[in-house]
């Protein structure tokens, strides 16, 4: 296991390298000039050239790339072109907000989907089952930019229970987590229900019943745990995409996270910041994938890695 983890950790490096290389060249290919954004309308051509020179943006792309990689090896992600602050500091400020939101959204999704999917599978064809399927359908269909304001109107404006937006105490976390977690809860409910029904037809479940185990034991100890593998895969993928892609929710709820920072960086063609954000997002994805592999082993000890 340790050897496998070491191998996987080493494999992260070429993947990260590939992602960063791709993004470096893509962001430079996109039309738009950071110097225009930084200096605005009034700057002279000479000043723009001077700034371009001082930021080494006049250098050939390969030279810039080499210098980016050299900085990266030293742990220096550079300075934001627009915010006049180091990329590392900006990411350090914003990342906790995104992690906080993602973990809470994930917790909400699990709290909603696990009991709902289990009940739906146990009582297949019943009203609960139909309700769970309807919930999945509705949850998947509701876009966050619509669900967010709807929740705000109900819980913040009408009932006055929560703040409308912004980051603060736990009360600030409720609505954005619910908005972000709802879509994931819908997916998990659907996948878990299907997986549970599939597993419930397996021989070992029949054997468990034949042994005289109670239905509760059969479903919770034998069926649910065997059905978890597919759910873990989906959860890991979702978790990675939530870390990277909760942009809409962060914008709607004025949540100062990494998603909003990335969008702002792309809009202003803030190359170092875009690269820094992509690095963080790529690392998040890879770490989540690695953790998922470890989880597979914990849930199903028959799954081993390496020799």
């Amino acid at each position, binding site marked *: 296991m340790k050897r496998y983890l070491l191998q996987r950790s080493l494999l992260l490096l070429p993947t990260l390298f590939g992602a960063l290389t791709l993004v470096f060249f893509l962001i430079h290919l996109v039309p738009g000039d950071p110097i225009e954004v930084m200096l605005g309308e009034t*700057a002279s051509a000479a000043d*723009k050239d001077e700034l371009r020179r001082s930021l080494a943006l006049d250098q050939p792309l390969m030279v810039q790339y080499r210098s980016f990689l050299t900085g990266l090896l030293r742990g220096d992600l550079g300075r934001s072109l627009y*915010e006049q602050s180091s990329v590392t500091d900006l990411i350090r400020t914003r990342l906790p907000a995104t992690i906080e939101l993602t973990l809470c959204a994930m917790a909400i999704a699990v709290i909603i989907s696990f009991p709902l999917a289990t009940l739906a599978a146990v009582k297949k064809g019943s009203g609960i089952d139909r309700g769970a399927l309807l919930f999945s359908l509705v949850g998947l269909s509701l876009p966050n930019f619509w669900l967010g304001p709807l929740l705000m109107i109900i819980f913040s404006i009408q009932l006055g229970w929560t703040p409308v*937006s912004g980051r603060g105490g736990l009360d600030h976390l409720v609505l954005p987590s619910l908005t972000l977690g709802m879509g994931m809860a819908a997916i998990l409910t659907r996948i878990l229900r299907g997986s549970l029904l599939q597993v419930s037809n397996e021989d070992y479940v029949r054997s468990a019943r034949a042994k005289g185990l109670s239905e509760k034991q059969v479903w919770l100890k034998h069926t649910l745990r065997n059905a978890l593998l597919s759910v873990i895969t989906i959860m890991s993928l979702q978790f990675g995409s939530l870390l990277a892609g909760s942009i809409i929710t962060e914008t709607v709820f*004025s949540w100062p996270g990494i998603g909003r920072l990335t969008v702002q960086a792309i809009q202003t063609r803030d190359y170092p910041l875009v690269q820094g954000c992509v690095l963080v997002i790529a690392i998040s994805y890879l770490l989540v994938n690695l953790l998922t592999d470890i989880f597979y082993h914990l849930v199903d000890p028959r*799954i081993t890695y390496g020799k």
Partner: protein
Amino acid sequence: MTLIKHENLTHRNKRDMVSQNFTSGNSRLIRNNTYHRLLVASLIVVLGGCRFSSSSNHNPGYLVVGIESNPLQLDPRYSTDANSVRIGGLIYNSLLRSDENSRLQLELAENWQKMDPQTYIFDLRRNTTFHNGQPLTAADVKFTYESILQAKNLSPKRALLKPLQAIDQLGPYRLRFRLAAPHAPFLEHFTIGIVPASSAGDAVSSATPPVGSGPFMLESLQSGEAVTLKANPSYWEGKPSLAGLVFKVVPDAMVRVLEFKKGSIGFMQNDLEPDVLPWIKHNTDAAIEARQGTTFQYIGINLTHPILMHKKVRQALAHAIDRESIIRHLIKDLGTPASGLLSPLNWAYEGRVNQWPHDPEKAKHLLDEAGFPDPDGDGPRPRFKLSFKSTNLDLRRRIAEALKEQLQRLGIELEIRTYEWGTFFSDIKKGNFHLYSLAWVGIQDPDIYHQIFHSASVPPNGDNRGHYSNSQVDQLLEKGRTAMDATERKRIYGEVQRILAEDLPYIPLWWWKNVIVKTSSLQGFVPYPDGDFTALKKVSFRSQTPAQ
């Protein structure tokens, strides 16, 4: 990015997998413990990261102002984005400051004299101190301007100060600014905020912006969340009535409105969808005010295009556009039909220029005269096709659709292309467009005409993106720069406005109004034409509970 693939896993025995479940053996207990540990660890991580009590924004007497985007750089030597400039205006004082009528008034300067067209002498107020208690002297002013001029500091404002040859300190409170040549618009640059001489020269050496001497001082700066200012108790004009200001960043316009409805925002200025104003009016106790502003919305034209280079075609387009209808229906009367770049609020505004009222018939005649007859009358074939570029904001798209429909009636086919800001602006700068729509914000001195319409100002040297060239305009604009007499300048720019209204390198659309939505308990706010926040230093709450 890679996804987990099951081929990475090596199962001990595939048959085992389907015939065994995992509940047998001692490992169950161990695994259960593992789950519990993981669960507890997850909860610690989740809850540990959360702040249990709501922080900030609850100080009594603070006004919460909703803003759309994060102010990026408050240091007045480097700030260029609108919110940084506006918030910075409350933290920093400048030698002169524009008032609510866009006229320059004394601020840090007690008086100033123009010794000759190239020399200005300023005497500073003597009772002014920075927020740290240190007195503000001529050395601080000199330092501020010189640090902008130093090439290594990379200030975006350096180009503006190019005409400045030297600053001489004539005494602790006296300064002389010497220009290399007469340059009338330079006066506008005496509005740059002053920082202490002890500040870092560049913008990157310090994590926080330097202290100022303005009515409010920086209390906290949370990137992407809020900027909090508190009243300066020893402000030379007297302590502001408000205890402080919180500029809360809420990117979504609808959410800002909901925050206002809930009472967690007490003041908003502009950046609101026109459609939501009636809702705010009926559902909140807001005081809403719309005042004439200076932001100028226009259609830019590429004059190198074989069709658009004809003046009559441009005039036909101007006649074809029904501004009144767009203003009434799409922007809900938040604009006034414009005749040119300078609004009636500007001292150099000239009203006696060609106007282009909506007249489709006249537009058709002009197109016929220009040599672009309709090939099949009311048939489907157009006279010609043009593209129209715009940003992808919803309101901009709807305006583009309205323009398309209006031009279609004349037999002009408009292809709408919308882009995100960076790509759109890059295309415009490169001259890669037929028609586009944009707005000029914060126009003060009419010298802006030089930047936009002088034939030498084609990008990258300026913003003459449509490649307009008229030698008479060039001469007038050069004269306008060096003429020091205001009456003479007004005459010169009046002539420029008359020529441009005839040549139409831009088709003027409207001047936006500034919309202020504030809680009814707030009093004393005077809107500025450019949307400045300066007047917040004079506002106060009536006796009822303030919105925080």
